[in-house]
């Protein structure tokens, strides 16, 4: 039976999804079309991830799924049943900021702050990816092993290119990421 969009919009097609968000198991009912970003912001009240371009272009909605950075605006909440989600709100532990958060403050890595949660969520995994030996487009020779000592400013700029900052705090962001990587 074919329903019109209007008919379907009126029927309850919500799906139950359970995710561990910042360490707590959360069960919610979402429409299939609800993005993970909208579910986090509107259903769970986690407004750290920002809705900016909503097209996967700016990085402001960056969160971690099972420890990896992703864009929460470009995926559906109902696809992530059973997974581990971390937002900027879940980065601190016992009241202490994450080292990358500390370095963003130390190096003045933001002005208006709108992109900052995405920048920091990205930066945390940029350091982990480098430590895991992942090369980037800035890596001179991908056939050779990559180590965190190779994480130069050029590497950081390339790896952070999916996070835009309208205030153009880029030099300070790169400095913050570089020092957080050094202190790791």
């Amino acid at each position: 039976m074919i329903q019109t969009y209007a008919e379907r919009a009126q029927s309850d097609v919500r799906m139950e999804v359970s995710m561990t968000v910042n360490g707590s198991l959360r069960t919610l009912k979402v429409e299939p079309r609800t993005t993970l970003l909208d579910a986090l912001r509107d259903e769970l009240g986690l407004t750290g991830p920002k809705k900016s371009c909503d097209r996967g272009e700016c990085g402001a909605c960056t969160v971690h799924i099972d420890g990896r950075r992703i864009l929460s605006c470009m995926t559906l909440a109902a696809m992530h049943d059973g997974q581990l989600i971390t937002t900027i709100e879940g980065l601190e532990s016992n009241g202490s900021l994450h080292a990358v958060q500390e370095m963003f403050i130390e190096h003045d890595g933001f002005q208006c702050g709108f992109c900052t949660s995405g920048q920091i969520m990205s930066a945390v995994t940029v350091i982990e990816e480098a430590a895991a030996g992942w090369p980037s487009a800035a890596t001179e020779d991908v056939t050779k092993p990559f180590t965190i000592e190779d994480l130069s400013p050029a590497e950081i700029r390339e790896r952070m290119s999916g996070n835009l900052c309208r205030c153009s705090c880029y030099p300070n962001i790169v400095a913050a990421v570089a020092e957080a990587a050094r202190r790791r």
Partner: protein
Amino acid sequence: MHPFTLSRPADISAAITAHAHDAHLAFIAGGTDLIGLMKDRVTLPDRLLDINHLPDMAQIEALHDGGLRLGSLARMSDVAANLDVRSRFPVIAESLLFAASGQLRNMATIGGNIMQRTRCAYFRDEDDLPCNKRRPGSGCSARYGFNRNLAIFGWSDDCVATNPSDLAVAFSALDAIVLVRGLRGQRSIPFTEFHRLPGNTPERDNVLDRGDLIVAVEVPARIEGRASHYFKLRDRQSYEFALVSAAAAVAVRDGRIESARLAMGGVAHKPWRLKAAESALRGISLDNADALRTAIATSFTEARPLAQNAFKVELAQRVALRALETAGARV
């Protein structure tokens, strides 16, 4: 977004059957292209089938003979970081690393990457301007419109779009094989025959039918695999689609090219193999830039630039040369 339903198939056969019998159903894996297309109302499927949980489709296998088998659900980032991929076929790792952003590479899959649709601005325009690829028969706004980014080879009056995948250019150069399962079982499609030229049916990007599901891409062992490189030229340094790109792979004997593989991105509706140049390059010394340039030029006699992209004809030849020389330095 428009309302749709979302479900998971019980197994691969159920996924194939559902897709074959339902023209309004779409597979979703990484979703990074499909969700953008739905948000821009380019495509409005009624039902999505989440194939992320199908078993045995995410492996990255280094084959004993020196080849690779990349499961269609393997993520771009995992393939790019894989040491076997990097040492056997650096061109594949580089094509992945020069695409998208770190976040998107963690989401997007190998199968989805080669299925991604054109970035032609008219195809994706929220105002739904005439576009034969989006609405067959509506016309091509780009043919006499903004076409600086578009094709110089193989286009038709119905469509001048280019394929945006970087990985597909590397796969084309290496003559990879797409393993597809459909209603009638599994079949292998040579990569150079996977994507189509637009002709008068530009709505079809590739040769897949309803019910077809990509399970893996195989890259056979190639003597040129190790000395390979992907060079991508963009309007900005990072996080941008190619203006022009080239995948090059080369085998050298006694200082001369024994065999070369060259494919280009950003120039056609499919990755564009430079077959004439590959033949002409045989026997030439990698140090002889003039001879390399002349050999590459043999593939550009058939170039047909549009009003705004004549610059691509020269640019593409320089990009091909750079890719070839850098690949050659890896011998």
